[in-house]
């Protein structure tokens, strides 16, 4: 097992290298010019060219790529073209809100979606099942920003229970932290809840047809124990897989959610950087997201062994 973990961690290195090359190349060939954005609308072409030179954007691809890789290997992600701040500083400023939003959404989604899916499978074909599936369709269909606006309108503007926007750091207290994150988490969690609930239901339906469940029932084991101790544990592998894959959904959804609720997170940092062609920031954030995604998948693989002892690495 330990050797497997080491192997997987080492395997992230070529993955990250490919991601790095891909991101750098993509940005190099993509249209757009940060110098033109910096110079402003009144700038002359000569001004734009001077700025481009001062930023080193006129140097050859290989020189820039080599320098960037060397800096990354030395723990330096570069400096933002626009803010003049180190990319690591900008990521540090933004990581807590995004992490908070994702963790809270994850907790919310799993704690709602898994019981929903289990109950839907248990009450298969009844109105409860249809309600759960209806909710799942709704969760998939309604865009995050629509849910966000509706929640903000009802709970912030009309009822005045929660703030419309912003983020309060966790160190300021649990309640202020939660106050700012409840609505965004619900908005972001909708699609995630739908996804997990559907997979849980489908997997549970399959598991509940198994012989050992019938045996358990015959032995007089209670319904709750059958559902949550026996069936759910055996249905866990696909559910955990979906939770892991769904991290990409969360990352993508966080971009929109952070914009709607004005949360200063990594999602907004990414969008702003893309619109301005702030290459070092885009590269840094994409590398970070890739790394997180690879780590989450590793964690999921390791969780398989917990739920299914037959799996060995």
């Amino acid at each position, binding site marked *: 097992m330990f050797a497997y973990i080491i192997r997987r961690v080492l395997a992230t290195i070529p993955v990250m290298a490919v991601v790095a090359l891909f991101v750098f190349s993509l940005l190099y060939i993509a*249209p*757009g*010019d*940060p110098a*033109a*954005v*910096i*110079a*402003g*609308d*009144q*700038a*002359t*072409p000569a*001004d*734009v060219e*001077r*700025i481009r*030179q*001062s930023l080193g954007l006129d140097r050859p691809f290989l020189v820039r790529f080599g320098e960037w890789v060397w800096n990354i290997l030395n723990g330096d992600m570069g400096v*933002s073209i*626009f*803010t*003049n*701040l180190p990319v690591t500083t*900008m990521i540090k*400023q*933004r990581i807590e809100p995004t992490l908070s939003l994702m963790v809270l959404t994850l907790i919310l989604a799993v704690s709602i979606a898994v019981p929903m899916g289990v109950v839907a499978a248990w009450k298969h074909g009844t109105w409860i099942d249809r309600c759960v599936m209806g909710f799942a369709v709704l969760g998939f269909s309604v865009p995050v920003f629509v849910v966000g*606006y509706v929640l*903000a*309108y009802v709970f*912030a*503007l009309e*009822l*005045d*229970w*929660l*703030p*419309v*926007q*912003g983020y309060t750091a966790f160190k*300021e*207290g*649990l*309640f*202020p*932290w939660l106050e700012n994150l409840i609505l965004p988490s619900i908005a972001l969690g909708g699609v995630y809840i739908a996804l997990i609930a559907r997979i849980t239901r489908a997997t549970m339906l399959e598991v509940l047809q198994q012989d050992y469940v019938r045996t358990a029932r015959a032995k007089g084991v209670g319904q709750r124990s059958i559902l949550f101790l026996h069936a759910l544990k055996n249905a866990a592998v696909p559910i955990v897989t979906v939770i892991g894959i769904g991290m990409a959904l969360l990352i993508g959804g966080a971009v929109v959610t952070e*914009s*709607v*609720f*004005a949360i*200063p997170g990594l999602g*907004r*940092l990414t*969008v*702003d950087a893309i*619109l*301005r*062609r702030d290459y070092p920031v885009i590269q840094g954030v994409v590398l970070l997201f890739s790394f997180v995604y690879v780590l989450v998948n590793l964690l999921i693989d390791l969780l398989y062994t917990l739920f299914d002892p037959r799996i060995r690495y």
Partner: protein
Amino acid sequence: MDRRTFIKAGAGLGLAGHLGLSAPAHAQGANARTLKFVPQADLANFDPIWGTQYVVRNAAALVWDTLYGFDEHLVPKPQMAEGASVSADGLTWTIKLRAGLKFHDGSTVHAKDVVASLTRWSARDSMGQMLKAIQQELVAVDEVTVRWVLKKPYPKMLMALGKNSTPMAFIMPERIANTDPFKQIEEYIGSGPMRFVRNEWVPGSKAVFAKFEGYKPREEANSWLSGGKHMMVDRIEWIVMPDPGTASAALQNGEIDWWENPITDLVPQLKRNRNVRVDIADPLGNIGTFRMNHLTTPFNSLKARQAVLAALSQEDYMRALVGDDTNLWKALPGFFTPGTPLYTEEGGDLLKGPRNLDLAKRLLAESGYAGTPVTCIVAQDQPITKAQGDVTADLLKRIGFNVDYVATDWGTTGQRRAMKNPVGQGGWSMFHSWHAGADCINPAVYIACRANGDRAWFGWPSIPAVETAVDEWFEAPDLDAEKAAIRRLNRAGMENVTFAPTGFFLQYQAWRANVSGVVKGPLPFFWGVSKT
């Protein structure tokens, strides 16, 4: 139960201390000294010479002061300067600093700081570059006196020092101003009424300014960038909100105090809220434009450019931009900002009266247009360019152009418009933009109206009569002579279609009813603004 009641109930249950529960920020008394403002865009950098975006200029006006500043009549008035004198031959300007000027690090503002600041500014600003081209020497005579000796008279000197178009001639400490003008400064030590709180700056989210106790305001009444800049709040927080719906809700909810540029669609909702005040932001407004490429087919033909103008309905553009509120726009058969001294409609007949599609088609046929694609670049991430681009695409099709509508973003537009290649090889035929009215009051700050070929703004028009008129304006001895020159410029520009103005439009600003002192102006002026 509203949030305040809910929180009070929670506090009553003893949860407050345990959970870190606190009263909402806006309920705290000290908050009357903090103004929360939503700017037009993110403050992504903070060097007003290196980065010339309006949002940087607006923030910089809080932190750095200028020698002169425009008042609401667009007249430059002394600000850091006690006054200036010019020699009889118009070649030597002597500027004296007023007493008591301090930088935010506590040091005194000296003439050498002014010299360094003006040197850096003049490398980037169009008026500054003209001054630099005729400069003999710029020196500090003593601690409070600057002498600027020129090779030829420059009557617009005070306008250059006091103008509000970017980049403004802000005064920084010498060591900071010595930074290469094409590189960002590393320190933000200002000379203005507010300090920049660097450690609270989160680009893309928040910028904070704190009152500088060492600032000595002028005694005159304040008027735009001139007079006493008295700060009535201790702290100003700029909160970046990319989503207008969120900003609108936050303003109505009292989470923010002032929103610089609410979109027109949301204004009726804001006006209905009794806790919110809405008014025009900038009386100088904006001028919508699209520029045709004078170097490539088909707009290298004057007839093709005139065909577009003959059918162009500014009303269509303005309704697409600002909706049906007719108080927010007006037709603009000229290039300069309506309501300012140099405004003229001379030569703008082609844009007046009923639109003439038949004439446009005839002019297009006479131009020899053979159906080559017209590459129309439209930045989709800027509502102003998106709305204009859609109207233009329809207009061109109705005239008979073969339109290649390129939907892109502003960053790409910025790069592509600089390319002089033929269409089909990365080149372009037209792109959309807009100019703040404050930047269209005279040719010195209005580079888009110039027509000096390769050195002109994108589209590179070459119209000698326009440039002759510009020269005449620079040398004009009085306002009448200036007006005459601008009339000639406008006529030549219109007849040769330097570019196409799509109309003049205004935008709103909105603030909470408990905020007072908000004025209309080309940038948000925070001095005199208070909150109860």
